[in-house]
């Protein structure tokens, strides 16, 4: 439906073309900023019809566009969205606009290149979420690394080069294994269409290798416990905008990959290996939670908090198999998935907001150390209110978006095993501990030093950005029903795919 509008193509190519034009502006920084604002604003406007015209209650792909691309390898330009990817695209356009506004004044060098990188990145990321063809997906998936590599490396902190190369190589190695699997599936089926991959029968051995290769690609991106070490480095060194994109959108691609590739293409292997994912997710939730507690750098703390929260996402996705094994019923599978997707969106908003908050302080004091702050509430009351709100959302307070996803995932875990739920539940304690302790040390107390005393409160631009995010966080938290409504059919469909064995007779 609605394919005649080419809405998704516009969403992919408008930012990319806009980015190239901005790149061409060179030294005309002001013009570059306004043009970027216009492009990202237009992209957000264009993405709204995705939500309003979206047909609820069907797992079918919508806004589908299909055109021949590379005939020799039967790869098509085939894009479309379902209830899982559509909200993620909205998150992407929303976040990019906020980043453009938030970066208005705090980029000094190569302004046009900076904004161009974010615009091109936006288009590529939307491409990842919309692609329904294996090669197309892979192309966007890898190409997306380049602008991010440049963003971290050019505008990052002191160890930016190390962080940028580590970021790139970590993700690259996992992705290439995925490429091998995609080609393998193509050679078996004669098509790169994801729907074909999802339908084709595969033996358990094949599925296991396929699952592990996908795991290599997506676990790095999520990131899951043993392969998470690139994230704190990348986050700490990236400029604020880069951190926001990383946390808000790029991490979600790992989770999205699990939902779109691992689970439906290799359901039997997923069932066999769900213990691996569940164990790593719980380690992320508990162990990384403790690691976060020990951080002295604000960005690092939020980075670790991201890893812990993403542990929830992977737990929610894979808990379904345990529910079936323990209760024999299938009712909780979709609930876990719903929780995972809501948690992804919520984490996108909250962690993005937290990084922006740190950015606001960093712009003024030029330090990310917690010990450089204290008593910020005295000089920046408006900022403090936002920061406290996002901190509470990060620790999963009811009424904020953080609560909905965590609650659904814990509820689903209960159906599987009380101990999973117990361990997952520790996040409520740990999350509250590290986030609120951060707030206590940074925001409250006496004014720590002269720099804090000299702080000025939010300007209108910053207020707008944080205000919009706060609205979104509260909206999802208080009234998640429309969101759940949009994705219900898709998660239900996915739950059915999981239960259907693909092992060839």
């Amino acid at each position, binding site marked *: 439906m609605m394919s005649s509008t080419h809405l998704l193509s516009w969403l992919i190519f408008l930012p990319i073309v806009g980015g190239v034009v901005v790149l061409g502006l*060179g030294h005309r920084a002001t013009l570059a900023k306004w043009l970027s604002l216009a492009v990202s604003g237009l992209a957000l406007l264009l993405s709204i019809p995705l939500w309003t015209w979206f047909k609820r209650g069907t797992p079918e792909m919508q806004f589908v566009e299909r055109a021949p*691309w*590379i*005939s*020799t*390898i039967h790869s098509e330009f085939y894009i479309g969205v379902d209830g899982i990817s559509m909200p993620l695209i909205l998150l992407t356009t929303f976040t990019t606009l906020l980043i453009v506004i938030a970066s208005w004044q705090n980029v000094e060098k*190569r302004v046009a*290149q900076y904004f161009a990188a974010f615009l091109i990145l936006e288009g590529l990321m939307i491409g990842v979420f919309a692609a329904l063809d294996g*090669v197309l997906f*892979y*192309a*966007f*998936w*890898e*190409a997306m*690394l*380049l602008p991010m*590599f*440049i963003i971290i*490396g*050019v505008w990052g902190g002191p160890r*930016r*080069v190390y962080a*940028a*190369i580590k970021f*790139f*190589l970590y993700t*690259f*190695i996992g992705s*290439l*294994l995925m*490429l*091998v699997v995609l*080609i*393998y599936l*193509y*050679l078996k089926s004669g098509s790169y269409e994801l729907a074909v991959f999802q339908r084709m029968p595969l033996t358990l051995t094949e599925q296991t290798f396929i699952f592990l290769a996908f795991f290599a690609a997506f676990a790095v991106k999520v990131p899951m416990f043993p392969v998470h070490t690139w994230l704190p480095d990348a986050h700490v060194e990236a400029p604020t905008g880069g951190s926001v994109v990383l946390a808000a959108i790029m991490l979600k691609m790992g989770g999205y990959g699990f939902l779109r590739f691992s689970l439906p293409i290799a359901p039997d292997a997923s069932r066999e290996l769900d213990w691996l994912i569940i164990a790593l997710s719980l380690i992320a939730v508990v162990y990384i939670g403790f690691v976060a507690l020990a951080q002295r750098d604000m960005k690092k703390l939020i980075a670790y908090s991201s890893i812990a929260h993403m542990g929830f996402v992977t737990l929610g996705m894979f808990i379904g198999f345990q529910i079936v094994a323990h209760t024999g019923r299938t009712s909780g599978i979709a609930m876990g998935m719903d929780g995972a997707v809501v948690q992804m969106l919520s984490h996108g908003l909250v962690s993005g907001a937290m990084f922006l908050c740190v950015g606001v302080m960093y712009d003024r004091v030029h330090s990310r150390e917690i010990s450089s702050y204290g008593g910020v509430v005295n000089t920046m009351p408006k900022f403090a209110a936002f920061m406290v709100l996002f901190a509470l959302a990060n620790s999963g307070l009811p009424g904020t978006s953080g609560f909905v996803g965590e609650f659904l995932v814990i509820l689903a875990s209960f159906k599987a095993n009380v101990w999973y739920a117990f361990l997952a539940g520790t996040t409520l304690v740990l999350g509250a501990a590290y986030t609120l302790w951060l707030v206590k040390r940074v925001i409250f107390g006496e004014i720590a030093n002269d720099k804090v005393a000299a702080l000025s409160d939010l300007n209108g631009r910053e207020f707008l950005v944080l205000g919009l995010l706060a609205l979104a966080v509260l909206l999802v938290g208080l009234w998640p029903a429309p969101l759940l409504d949009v994705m219900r059919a898709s998660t239900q469909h996915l739950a059915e795919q999981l239960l259907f064995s693909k092992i060839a007779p």
Partner: protein
Amino acid sequence: MIAGSFNPSFFSSGLVHAWPEIFLSLAACAILMLDLLLNDAQRRWIGALAVISLLVTAVLVVAHPVPTKIVALGGLFELDRMAQILKVVTLLTVAAVFVYSTDYLQRRAIFKGEYFVLGLFATLGGMVLISAGSLITLYLGLELMSLCLYAMVAFDRDSGVAAESAIKYFVLGSMASGTLLYGMSIVYGVTGSLELAEIASVVRNAAIGGNIGLMFGVAFLIVGVGFKFGAVPFHMWIPDVYEGSPTSVTVFIGTASKLAAFALAMRLLPEALGASQPDWSQMLVVLAVLSMALGNIVAIAQTNLKRMLAYSTISHIGFVLLGILSGTAQGYQAAMFYMISYVIVAAGAFGMILLLARQGFEADKLTDFKGLNARSPWFAGMMAFLMFSLAGIPLFIGFWAKLGVIQAVLSVHLTWLAVIAVLFSVVGAFYYLRIVKLMYFDEPTDTTAIGGSILMRTVLSANALLALAFGIFPGTLLEICQRALQ
């Protein structure tokens, strides 16, 4: 041997198929003569004439219809779609190389007509090799090309390093030619024919694919091909020759001669010895794995860009071999696509070195690229495109090349080889990204404006943009390669 009695009228009627080669050799001779009559100021027209004659030859190649494989001149000459395409790519590449080299040679005061004449004859050798229908023409073409290249390396008479490289290249290259000739003589001994088609049918029909004598011949041929390609363990000459030669010659060796080596491999292995594919495949597996491993790992340690690109060539040859060793039509197409895309990108990368080079400054150190983005955002972007392409990142041509060869080895169930290939391409990504890092993340140490004529800048930009354009729409080139090798 040439079958039947010699028929002059039949022979001369075949000449029409070799018209581009004939034109090019006449043009080269004419330019050689003309060069004697010109003074230094007029000499710059020599370069233009050389480029024009290359372009005209390319048009002649394209204009000649090749509905099916044409065998002419008593089996010595063979024209198929693969030959046609490889010739066009070679001619265009050499034309670009001449454009890139002009400024460099002038600044170095070694702008001599001989560079272009030798280059034209080397190209002619490459074309003869590409169209060879018999072992004799194959060898003739190869030697014509190699001898010109030896002379070109030593072309800068005052440079000791260049002379050393030339000797090294000459000695090792002659050894390779000797080995190749020895292998050819064994194959002739076993099959009783010099014609590729004849050899192929003898090997197939007499079912002597596994004959021990033939195996010896194949082994020697592979050594020879490995030398010309620069595959490990026959790669020793590559880094030294690349580094020691004047950059304008390095770019020639790094591009046009690789296409010729590819044609050599394709004519000898799949075409003549297709029936013993299982045997040579095994040998190529070893060469491919070693090349990818050594090329990628040693490249990390280099501080000289020409040397780094030399090791990078070695690793890319490993990938090309993956396509050939799979032994399927799809694999050969993938290898051909890989070779063409590599040549496009390598020409651009060496072109960038030539662009940055100045009087007394080679710009061949990695550090010479520091902060290029601050000096010239446009050319930093172009170089970044080329590096991303070499690293095999999507939306650049190098990705489709890698995709093709990995698909080829997966389709013959060599999954382990595919995994090794992708792992080494991660290693490769590291050193290509390092160039990007130098250009974008570091501040410039040198703020001289970028030189180069308008023509050179335009051609170089077009070259780099081609890597992006074919990266977004690889369909045409993939189809061309597919039709060439069905």
